[in-house]
């Protein structure tokens, strides 16, 4: 915990603090407290509303796959699995593309093109998620169904072990499609922060590396990546946070089936997609409570992910200091 910094000399020299300084500090503190208060309130409301479901199903809520509104028996395995697996695919696709494009934009791209391309990336981040969802459903899913999935099913499906990931009829929608769309969605977020990270690295380091004869590849690998890794981790976490919570686009393309399947082509569901689908028409207290318990689980997952990111960040900073 850092202590509050002393007031600047200019204020302190005549032994009094201007009222504006006090007001400013008070306002900032109030803002911070409000944010923390909101967070706490969300958690409390979710926990209270989820309590009946958690009490009724116990730890079994986290380990059963059944999701039956008729008999009012609910388990969270399918949505948790779907949330994690789609986010994993999104990261696998999004992070390399984002870092690659950020390196291109900061290191390789001609100066005249750079600004317009960066604006382009930022505009991509501003596209509403439902647009990605509709594009995914109307354009991307049929493309996968007609051209990509039959090929993969034929070639990879018969393989032992790995083949299980690529079996089943080619619907075009499913876990893989959702993960790929999410990857495209998080890409601009990660890329635009990564650009800032690379720009912020001391130009002298870069110049010095080029000066001793390093190639662009060597500069990127040995200077920029190690220097920027804390920032890149932060950028990736921003993207992961978005992927975990993304709702509309996923709902459109994941197939919304409360099942855990080995195949990436099979329909699945995520926590936020289940909420978006079922919340409005959920009748019955246990049903509603179970949906809110899903919300609570997402809250906890996000919290854990962010905490892990903090830990990693601290680890990196310690390493840098050494």
């Amino acid at each position: 915990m850092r202590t509050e910094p002393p007031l600047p000399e200019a204020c302190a020299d005549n032994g009094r603090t201007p009222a504006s300084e006090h007001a400013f500090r008070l306002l900032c503190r109030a803002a911070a407290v409000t944010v923390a208060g909101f967070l706490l309130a969300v958690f409390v409301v979710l926990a209270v509303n989820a309590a009946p479901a958690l009490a009724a199903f116990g730890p079994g809520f986290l380990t059963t796959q059944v999701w039956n509104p008729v008999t009012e028996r609910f388990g969270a395995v399918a949505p948790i699995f779907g949330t994690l697996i789609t986010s994993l695919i999104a990261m696998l696709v999004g992070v390399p593309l984002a870092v690659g494009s950020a390196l291109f934009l900061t290191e390789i791209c001609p100066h005249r093109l750079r600004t317009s391309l960066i604006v382009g990336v930022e505009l991509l981040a501003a596209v509403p998620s439902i647009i990605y969802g509709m594009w995914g459903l109307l354009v991307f899913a049929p493309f996968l169904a007609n051209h990509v999935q039959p090929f993969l099913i034929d070639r990879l499906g018969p393989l032992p072990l790995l083949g299980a990931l690529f079996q089943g009829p080619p619907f075009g929608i499913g876990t893989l499609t959702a993960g790929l769309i999410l990857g495209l969605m998080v890409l601009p977020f990660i890329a635009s922060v990564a650009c800032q990270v690379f720009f912020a690295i001391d130009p002298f380091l870069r110049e010095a590396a080029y000066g001793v004869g390093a190639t662009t590849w060597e500069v990127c690998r040995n200077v920029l990546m190690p220097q920027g890794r804390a920032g890149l981790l932060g950028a990736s976490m921003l993207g992961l946070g978005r992927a975990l919570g993304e709702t509309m686009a996923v709902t459109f393309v994941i197939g919304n089936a409360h099942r855990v399947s080995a195949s990436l082509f099979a329909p699945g569901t995520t926590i936020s997609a289940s909420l978006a689908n079922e919340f409005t028409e959920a009748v019955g207290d246990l049903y509603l409570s179970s949906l809110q318990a899903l919300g609570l689980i997402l809250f906890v997952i996000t919290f854990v992910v962010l905490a892990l990111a903090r830990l990693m960040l601290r680890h990196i900073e310690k390493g840098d200091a050494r």
Partner: protein
Amino acid sequence: MRFAPSSVRGAAIAAAVGAFCLAGSAQAAEMTGAGATFPYPVYAKWAEAYKAKTGISLNYQSIGSGGGIKQIKAKTVDFGASDMPLKPDDLKTSGLVQWPMIMGGVVPVVNVPGVKAGELKLSGKVLADIYLGKVKTWNAPEIAKLNPSLKLPKKPIAVVHRSDGSGTTFLFTSYLAAVNPEWKDKVGVSTAVEWPAGIGGKGNEGVANFARQTPDSIGYVEYAYALQNKLAYTQLSNKDGAFVKPSSATFQSAAANADWAQAPGFSLVLANQPGKTSWPITGASFILMHASQAAPARAAEVLKFFSWAYANGGKMAEALDYVPMPANVATMVAGVWTEQIKSADGKAIWPAK
């Protein structure tokens, strides 16, 4: 980036103007309702015509039947709307009055190369077996037996269902449970069920999209969506064993055979109605109001709107492929209003002056 600030400003202005208009309309007389999405287009159409005539507007939020029931129980709206009728006990405990307002039909749609709208014949039992995942391919003997003249592909059936809770699903599962005991035992009837097979699309448009895009698929949508999206609906065999095509006429036939008088609280599901020309997946959408009204004048205004809709809304409903309630049902409903909806001091509100 140069144009971005101006577009942001444009959006802000639009939002401000929108907010101003909303604030303006809130000044005028307004009825509020919330609930089912299925009847929303026809309620909106009626509200528009009613406003032009009387100046009284309707603010109807199509948030879903579940939400509508919650809102009316919390008394935040003048009326709620639900596709699933509440049971008489439930009505009594929550002090609500319920009546059917409009009817519609749900139709199975298929996307099988070479099969045109109305060509494929299915029975309820086979339809349920497809949704149970037991009939897996289009050339299965069960389907072939019903369609000796059609050549069906040797392809797996892609089953499409609703992923969101929905009155459409309630009607569809009511029908499947009525004709297939296994469905009744294993899956049951609700606005959302644990689907044994298939992929889920959000909303009628989601199912319509999947059905249109995925070859060899089968789905179910409201009739209007099947027409608008030019989807190939199927024929179904009804309770009398006759094959029928979905149309306003076959919906009306199912509705005419419904025995509303014998259903306490109008709690009646129209699945699998008798009659040679009855479409088997027909259903009504319901309105809910409190029996005891703290503001009787306001309640009377709302009832006037519904009364007007019964009398004058038929043509508009038919234009949107809905089925208006028969006149005798409207009379029955008005009787229930008089009998059950009272002001706080026990006076009947209907007929309103």
